[in-house]
């Protein structure tokens, strides 16, 4: 058994970290369901689903590093092996959970919104096409968020809270720079055109490319982490 697989198994030992990813979305879904049954709530829960699953994925990715890394290093696991095993598991989790989201979306569609016209898992323009595209989109999106969270966790382990805040500020500045450049070259029309004409396949590619970039960033950062 390779060290990567051992690390993935080690990560799954606690289970709570990865199982916790579903707790928030499940609770909000039940709440939406209850509100829909009583006729009090709105019938569109996709926004809350996206927000909570994104937040949970980020936190799960970060915890997979901050909680597990020190003891793994004590057990003679190299940083690279730890990162590779954790990334491997994140990919598998994204694939399986993405499939779960797809199945729930299909059930939701087939039952007319759980018999209550409630749309929680069906996200317009993102998770609304053929099942395999929904799956690939969920997979790429979850993988991106988990990898991003892992990078946050590594930054925190290496430079503590100060580094984490600097990392967040750097990302905000990068986003601001993109906005300024688009404005400078009067490129709003082109940017709008890009996003409105982006196909599902293009979106999956974009998410996957960003996930790879996050993984590369995390890999470069973890090499000098000390515990």
């Amino acid at each position, binding site marked *: *058994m390779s*060290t990567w697989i*051992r690390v993935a*198994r*080690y990560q799954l*030992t*606690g289970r*709570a*970290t990865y199982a916790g990813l579903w707790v928030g979305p499940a609770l909000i879904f039940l709440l939406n369901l209850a509100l829909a049954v009583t006729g009090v709530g709105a019938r569109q829960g996709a926004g809350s689903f996206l927000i909570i699953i994104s937040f949970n994925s980020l936190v799960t990715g970060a915890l997979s590093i901050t*909680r*597990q890394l*020190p*003891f793994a*290093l*004590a*057990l*003679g*696991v*190299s*940083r*690279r*092996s730890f990162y590779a095993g954790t990334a491997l598991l994140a990919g598998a989790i994204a694939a399986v959970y993405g499939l779960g989201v797809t199945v729930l979306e299909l059930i939701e569609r087939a039952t007319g919104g759980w018999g209550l016209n409630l749309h929680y898992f069906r996200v317009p323009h993102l998770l609304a096409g053929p099942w395999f595209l929904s799956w690939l989109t969920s997979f790429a999106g979850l993988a991106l968020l988990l990898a991003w969270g892992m990078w946050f966790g590594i930054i925190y382990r290496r430079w503590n809270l100060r580094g984490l805040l600097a990392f967040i500020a750097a990302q905000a500045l990068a986003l601001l720079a993109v906005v300024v450049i688009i404005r400078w070259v009067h490129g709003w029309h082109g940017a709008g055109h890009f996003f409105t004409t982006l196909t599902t396949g293009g979106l999956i590619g974009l998410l996957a490319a960003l996930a790879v970039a996050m993984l590369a960033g995390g890999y470069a950062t973890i*090499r*000098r982490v*000390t*515990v």
Partner: protein
Amino acid sequence: MTPAISVAGVTRRYRGQLALDQVTLDLEPGSITGLLGRNGAGKTTFLRIVAGHEFASAGTVAVLGASPAGNQAVLRRMIFIREGQAYPDFRVRQVVRAASWFYPNWSHELAGALLDEFGLPLDRKVGNLSRGMRSAVGIVIGLAARAEVTLFDEPYAGLDAVSRQLFYDRLLADYAGHPRTVLLSTHLIDEAAGLFERVVVLHRGRVVLNTAADDLRGAATSVSGPAIAVAEFTAGRPVWDSRRIASQESAVVAAALDETDRARAAALHLHLEPLTLQQLVVRAAGTAAASPPEQTTAQRTSA
């Protein structure tokens, strides 16, 4: 023979503070070495660098013939159990099981016996255990792993005397059957003295003593009795320290005594008592503190 641990000119600086200063050290495979020194001497930094958890500012480190930093082939043959080890949110049973996956020589039998002997509750979260019990978890893992290079940094913080003795006994018993290189950092010097085959003392980031433990035993003796007799006995011998109260005097002779010396001491009604390892370490660190840094290593190594 390739040293199990070979460190050459290792220096570690933290923002202007020197934690390790040109440390050079070779440890042969199959030995138990005590890494001793005062708080802040650099023991933990040294162990962290050897384990690949920390990076040296200068110098080279080789474990089992290769650099440990990022080297999975070397790291899988090592284990590093430290005081206040951070554990994941696992139960005792899960922590021990997870550790067993990473070590080819892992002994389930030894782990089970140690878990019983330390009375560790298998289904309790490690984070909810007392400090001493968390230390015991580290000891179980550190011993059952049977890693070729085993590093312990104050592994028994919070452990009671009975449990500490259990650790010493089990370490020695398992080491006899499965020799490995053990480097143990501790402040409980006299308690652990019987384990050590070699002693390394760090002081302010420098090696001030590096010698076989057998060479230290009997290397210095406290001589006490009537001041006139003590003066007669110590004449011509190297004396580290002497204290006089009224007509009684106590002096430390820094030389091995033979049977003739002992017979003469008895005739002079003098009381002889070998210095303990702890007293020798205190002496080594104290002398190093009072000496110019460039002289300490050579002086103490030859002491």
